[in-house]
């Protein structure tokens, strides 16, 4: 167990925090929801602080001063964690979003009697995600992936008094388990070929088992990232989970899985240009199917879920262009969209959750009158949705600009077709984003009473913070872009 201990500390802190919080919830019966929410937020915040020292070292490594910080033993049965720049970025994003979700839950979970179980699950999910990002061998990847997934299944089905939640959780469980099983099969194949599992391996270049293994891992992780046609669990899961959970799932969990997928495939020796082509082709499916199906959704959260599938497509497109044509700018643009999408989608889910909490709305039609009853939520929701639609000067527009600008640079017929598909999809997306905004600002009928609700400070704070972030990233994308780079 040697190496830089700061690599593992945030992970250990969050994972340990989960167990500690579980104990507290069980032993200290009088711990109310706000107390547990504050403790969870403290743990997430602490995790963020603990991550700071690694940043300097990773920056140094990028400039050529020594290798990336690692921790662990490389012996059989050991574990090695490595803080790659993308892992660090995503784990910071996950902790930040976790912090927001925890604070938000301080108000949002007020009516759920089972809140003592909720917070440890939240922490476990993020810990699993961090592990997936940091680990450098396939076996531990599998373990962390299962840890994250199990927590996610439980969270999706958290409101078990509603049968829809149970149904969605069950569907997610079945499909997710199939995904992890396929992945396990792939790992076994690769172990048969190479006799070891520590990445990077050159498995792909060798025999049939290496190829089958890589393909299986691609399918398994692809399912977790919601790549069409393996997305079928996603709308149900995002649509039925509590909004705070949907926000986390949509903004970081599935997107980080996508990045892990890329890291693993590249680590297994898959040529970058092939992987890029694969991503671009599946990106078209994701965009078109996500946007097309979002158009016909009546439930707001399902609509947002389909929009998430489409946005995954945009991210895949940009990353694919970067990998296929060796353009670091396109990779950067893809990561930037990942970041902005996380902020915007989380804001949308959080705002939607506020509407559900106070007015019990679930369909798009019921959003009517939100501007009168919950002005702040209406504002942040519109900001987030407008941002997702790519309206300048919000964050989403800047990311689309970068993606398209990099696409032009690739100067290839496939990419011109791809950009046309991309633009047509952005137009198609307006068909559902704009009616959402219109609906939110539509006044209630005269005879309906429209009480104005006082927003819980927990939720209001998070909404304000994220809404401000959407504008800030849009107005000055420079530092964020540099951070992503």
């Amino acid at each position, binding site marked *: 167990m040697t190496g830089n201990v700061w690599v593992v500390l945030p992970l250990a802190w969050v994972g340990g925090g989960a167990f500690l919080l579980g104990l507290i919830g069980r032993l200290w019966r009088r711990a109310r929801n706000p107390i547990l929410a504050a403790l969870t937020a403290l743990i997430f915040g602490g995790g963020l602080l603990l991550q700071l020292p690694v940043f300097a070292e990773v920056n140094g490594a990028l400039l050529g001063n020594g290798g990336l910080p690692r921790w662990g033993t490389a012996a059989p049965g050991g574990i090695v964690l490595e803080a790659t720049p993308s892992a660090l970025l995503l784990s910071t994003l996950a902790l930040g979003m976790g912090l927001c979700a925890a604070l938000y839950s301080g108000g949002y979970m007020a009516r759920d009697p089972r809140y003592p179980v909720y917070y440890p699950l939240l922490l476990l999910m993020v810990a699993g995600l961090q592990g997936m990002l940091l680990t450098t061998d396939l076996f531990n990847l599998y373990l962390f992936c299962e840890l994250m997934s199990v927590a996610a299944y439980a969270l999706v089905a958290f409101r078990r008094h509603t049968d829809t939640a149970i149904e969605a959780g069950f569907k997610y469980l079945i499909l997710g388990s199939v995904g992890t099983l396929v992945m396990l099969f792939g790992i076994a194949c690769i172990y048969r070929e190479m006799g070891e599992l520590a990445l990077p391996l050159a498995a792909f270049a060798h025999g049939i088992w290496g190829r089958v293994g890589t393909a299986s891992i691609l399918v398994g992780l692809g399912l977790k990232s919601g790549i069409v046609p393996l997305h079928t669990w996603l709308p149900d899961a995002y649509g039925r989970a509590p909004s705070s959970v949907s926000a986390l799932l949509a903004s970081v969990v599935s997107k980080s899985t996508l990045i892990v997928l890329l890291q693993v495939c590249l680590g297994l020796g898959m040529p970058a240009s092939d992987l890029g082509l694969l991503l671009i082709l599946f990106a078209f499916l994701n965009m078109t199917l996500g946007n097309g199906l979002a158009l016909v959704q009546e439930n707001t959260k399902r609509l947002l879920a389909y929009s998430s599938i489409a946005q995954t497509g945009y991210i895949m497109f940009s990353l694919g262009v970067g990998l296929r044509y060796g353009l670091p*700018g396109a990779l950067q643009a893809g990561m930037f969209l990942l970041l902005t999408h996380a902020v915007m989608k989380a804001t949308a889910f959080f705002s939607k959750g506020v509407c559900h909490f106070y007015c019990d709305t679930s369909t798009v039609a019921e959003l009517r009158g939100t501007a009168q009853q919950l002005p702040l939520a209406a504002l942040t929701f519109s900001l987030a949705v*407008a941002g997702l639609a790519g*309206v*300048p*000067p919000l964050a989403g*527009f800047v990311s689309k*600009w*970068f993606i*398209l*600008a990099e696409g*032009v*640079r690739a100067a290839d017929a496939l990419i011109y077709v791809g*950009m046309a598909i991309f*633009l047509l999809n*952005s*137009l198609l997306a*307006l*068909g559902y984003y*704009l*009616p959402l905004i*219109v609906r939110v*600002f*539509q006044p209630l009928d005269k005879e309906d009473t429209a009480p104005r609700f006082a927003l819980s400070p927990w939720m209001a704070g998070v909404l304000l913070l994220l809404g401000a972030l959407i504008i800030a990233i849009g107005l*000055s*994308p*420079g530092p964020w*872009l*540099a951070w992503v*780079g």
Partner: protein
Amino acid sequence: MTLDTLLLEVVLGAPLLAALILVLLRGRGTRFAGWIAGGSAVVTLGAVFGLLPTLYGGGEPAVAFSWIPAVNIQLRLHVDWLTLPFLVTEAAVTLAAVLYSWGYHKADERSGYFYALLLLFAVGMSGTTLADDLFLFYIFWELMLIASCVLILVWGEGARRGAVALKYFIFTHLGSLMVLVGLLVLYNATGSDSLVALRAGGWELAPGLLTTVLTLFFIGFSVKMAIFPVHLWLPDAHTVAPMPVTIMLAAAMLSMGAYGILRFPFSLFTAEQIAPFALPLMLAGLISEVYGALMALAEKDIKRIIAYSSVSQMGYILFGLGTLNRAGIEGATLHVIYHAIVKALLFMVAGIVIRATGRRNIDELGGLGRAMPWVTACAVIGGLGIAGMPPLGIFNSEWMIFSGGFETTHIALSALTLFASLLTVVYALRFLGGIFLGERPAGLTTSPVSKILVATTVALTVLLIIEGLFPAAIFDWAEHELPLLLGGGL
């Protein structure tokens, strides 16, 4: 910081600051909202005129900040002679619209937001003309769409406003996306988004790419100009928008499409590169002109009549641009300015009539001449103005456009354009006669309207007459922009 950069910052900063104050005041500032907005509009117009001496001295005021250094994107504002006619028009129309709102808009707790959005709409337009880099241009270009769309969505008249706002957004956004692709190709050609670099030359596009980019620019900007057949958003948006917004849409925003054509295809490419597009532009202009005029004759809603007249008038501008010669382009620029005044005037008259009678169907109106003498006088002058009667301004610009047309080899087209302008006379007379002359229909009563509405309308009428009698200054402005266009070959 010199005086010029200060003025440049004021042009954008004053309305932005006023909008911010209005938003921060929330419901409390209702009584002052109109004053704050009006004050900032006056300051902006003053600052625009303050830039004139430098321009006459041969300078081009500019201000630049580095924005996203990682990808070579900066924030640069700049004024040249191409900007000026559009900037002046936009600032003046904003002032007129705000003043008109004082009388038209009923003050309630949301008034602050109304004026704030009106100012943001204006910032979008002036920013579009001032932006000297592609990224910033697109941001302002879309800001003007968003602000106007929200205004229609929230303050629009009639139950269909949600659907109309949606149609307006999607239609014009489609045009914007085409423009965006063109901008991205230009960005990639030089590796920087600055128009300075683009103007400096030293880059070129493959022939196929060049044609694609120019086509995208022309179609994209035509959507904003509401040229047939991509005009479909205009009649609904103009009819449903509250009158001050309609004034800004029709008198200023439509011309932004013409500005886009002048700023991108015309000033970045040479006459030979544009030449293949001359005939399509002239044809589209002619068809738009005839179609808009015929629809204006067929409509019954007085607001829609004037709305279709905009489709027709934008056709003249596109025709003038398509001639690719001195007279035509100069005429098109003049037409932007004159059309702004006349169109604002006619919409103001229509707004007063609708306010006073509560009716908007021309068959149910008539004989109002006696009841509203001042408004009638303004309407007659506005109607004659749009019909191209000398010495009112539009006569000058149409003269230039037609003479530009006859200089080209397409004499037949130009003759058709000239005769099609007769249709304008017909719908203008129908508008005047149907509302102010003839028998007054049974049950038509007039209620008194706010004095401010009438005063603004009269002021604009006076401006129209003055501009028509003393057009030298405006001709001079339009003259100065010509060396910037088509590789300086004009």
